[in-house]
C-alpha cells in the first residue's frame, strides 16, 4: 500500500471544501445545502488531522472532537428549524422561502 503524502490530503480537503461551498451556493434544497455545510466542516477536519499527523503536533487532533460536537449541535438546531418551517410552509426549497421581502 502506498502511503498518501501531506499534499494529497490537503488537496483532497480543498476539493471537499470547494464541493461543499459551491453546493451551498448553487443547490436549492435546504437539506442538500445542509449536507454541503457538513461537507465543508469535514474538509476542515480532514485537513486538521492530516496536518496534525505530518507536523507531529497534537492540537489539531484535539480540535476535531470539538468540531464534531459543534457540528452535531448545529445539525440538531438546523433540522428542528427545517421541520418547523416545513410544517408551516410545506416546502424546503430555498426559492419558495421568500416571505421576507420589503
Amino acid at each position, binding site marked *: 500500500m502506498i502511503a498518501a503524502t501531506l499534499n494529497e490530503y*490537503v488537496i483532497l*480537503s480543498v476539493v471537499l*471544501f470547494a464541493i*461543499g*461551498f459551491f453546493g*451551498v451556493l448553487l443547490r436549492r434544497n*435546504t437539506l442538500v*445545502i*445542509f449536507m454541503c*455545510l457538513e461537507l*465543508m*466542516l469535514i*474538509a*476542515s477536519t480532514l*485537513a*486538521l488531522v*492530516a*496536518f*496534525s499527523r505530518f*507536523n*507531529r*503536533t*497534537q*492540537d*489539531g487532533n*484535539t*480540535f476535531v472532537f*470539538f*468540531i464534531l460536537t*459543534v457540528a452535531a*449541535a*448545529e445539525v440538531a*438546531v*438546523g433540522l428542528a*428549524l*427545517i421541520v*418547523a*418551517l416545513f410544517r*408551516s*410552509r410545506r416546502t424546503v426549497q430555498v426559492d419558495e*422561502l421568500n*416571505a*421576507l421581502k*420589503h
Partner: protein
Amino acid sequence: MDLSSLQALAANNDWTAIFPELLLGCLALVLLGLEIVLPRDLHRHLPVVALLGVLAILPSQIISFTVGFVEGESFNGLLYHSREGQLMRVFFLLSALLTGVLGTVSLAKQKVAHTEFYHILLVVTAAMMLLVQSNHFVMLFVALETVTIGLYVLVGYFRTSPYSLEAGLKYLILGALSSAILLFGIALLYGVAGNPALPGHTGAAMNFDALRNFLAHNPHHFLASVGIVLVLAGVAFKIAAFPFQIWVPDVYQGAPTPVTAFLAVASKGAGFLVLLILARTFAPCAWLLAPVLTLMAGATILFGSLAALTQHNVKRLMGLSGVTHAGFLLLGVVAAGTQAMAVGAIYFYLFAYLLASFAVFGVMAQVAGANDADQELSHYAGLAKDRPFLALVLAIGLGSLAGIPPLAGFMGKLFIFIAAFKAGLYGLLAVAVVGVVISIYYYFSWIRAAFFASGIPPEGDTPARPALPPVGFMAGLVLGLLAFATVLLGFYQGVLGQWLAPR
C-alpha cells in the same frame, strides 16, 4: 503524559478569572430548574429572576474591574484577561440586561415559552464574554459556535411565525457557511505554522502569540495568507461587513425585536473584538491586512448607506444602517493598525451605539403589533401626538445613531474620525463623511414620520398602526435611562473617556 504533568496543567486553571461567566451559566441552569419545580402560575416571575441575576452580576463585574483582577493568561493560554476584555464583559452584561427588558415587552405579545428565551440569552452572553477573552483558536471557535448556535434558536424563537422561522433558517445556513470558512482558515494556518521545514514553526500553532511569532518569520507565505483571508471572511460575516452582509435585512426583519437588538449590538460588538484580537495576531502580515480591511470598510459604509435609503420596514432599515455602523467601526480597526487611540475610540463608539440602538429598539418593541416582522415606517405616523415619551426617546436614539451633536453617537464618530485622520486615511474619511450625510437623511425620514406626519392614513388601504399598549414601568424607566445616558455621554465622557488616552 503522566499524572504530575496533568496536575501542573490543571494548576493553571484559574476558575476565579471566569467567575462572571460561571455565574451566568449557573443562573441559566437555575432558571430551567425553577421552571420544573415551581407551579405554573409562578412562571411569569422567572424573567424577573433572570434580569435581577444579571443586574447582580453587573456591579460585581465593575468592582472586579478595579480590585483583584487577573491580567494575563489562564487555562494554559486558552484565555487572556485584559482590561479591554473586562470592559467588554460589562458591555455584554448590559446588552443581555437590556435585551431581557425588551424581551418582557415583546414576548408578552406572542404565545411562546418565556423561560427558554432567557436561558439561551444568558448562555450566549457568557459565551460572548469568553469569546472576547480567547487567546487560542479552539477557544475562539467553540465560544463563537456557542454564540451562533444560541442565536439560531433565538432568531427562530417565534416559531408560530413563518417569518421568524425563515429568518432563523437563513441565519443558520449563512452562519454555518461563515463558520466553515473560518474553520478552514484556522486549519490552514495551523498546518502552515506547524510545518517543521519553515523558520519559526511552532508546536502550539493554535495559540495567538505563537502564531504571531510564526507570521513575523514568514509574513509572505502563500498558504498562511489564504488562511488569514478565510479567517477574516468568516469574521466579516459575523460583523456584517461587505460583501458578507447579504443575510442582514431578512434576518433582522424576521427575528423577534429583542433578538434583532441583541444581534445588532452584542453580536456585532463581539465580532469587532474578535477582529481586533485577530488583527493584532495577524499584524506581521500588514501588507495583506491593511488593504483588505480598507476596501471592506469603504464598501461597507457605501453599501449600507445606499441600501438603507430604499427601506420602508424599520427593522430592515436598522439592519442596513447597522451595516454602515460596522463600516465606521472597520474604519477604526484600520486606523488601529497605526494609532493606539483608535482602539479606545472603537470601545466608545460601541457603547454609544449600544445606548442609542437599545433606545430605538425599545421603542420598536413597544410599537410592534402581533406580527413582529411587520413594522413599517408608516406605523410611526403621529407617534409624537399619541406617545410623546416614546417619540422623544426615538428621536434621541436616532439622532445619536445619525451622529447629531451633542449626543453620544456624535462623539463616537468624532473620535473614530480623529483617529482615522491621524492615521492618514483621507480617502476612507471622505467615504465615511458621505455615509454620515446619507445616514442623517434616512434617520430623519423616520423622525419626520414620528413627529410631523399625521396619524390618519390618507387612503383607506394604508395599513393602520397596531394598537399601542401602555408603556410598562420597567420598560419606561429603562428607555428613559437610555435616552438620558445618550445625552449625558455626549457632554461628559468620564470613565469611558479615560479609555481614549493612548496607553
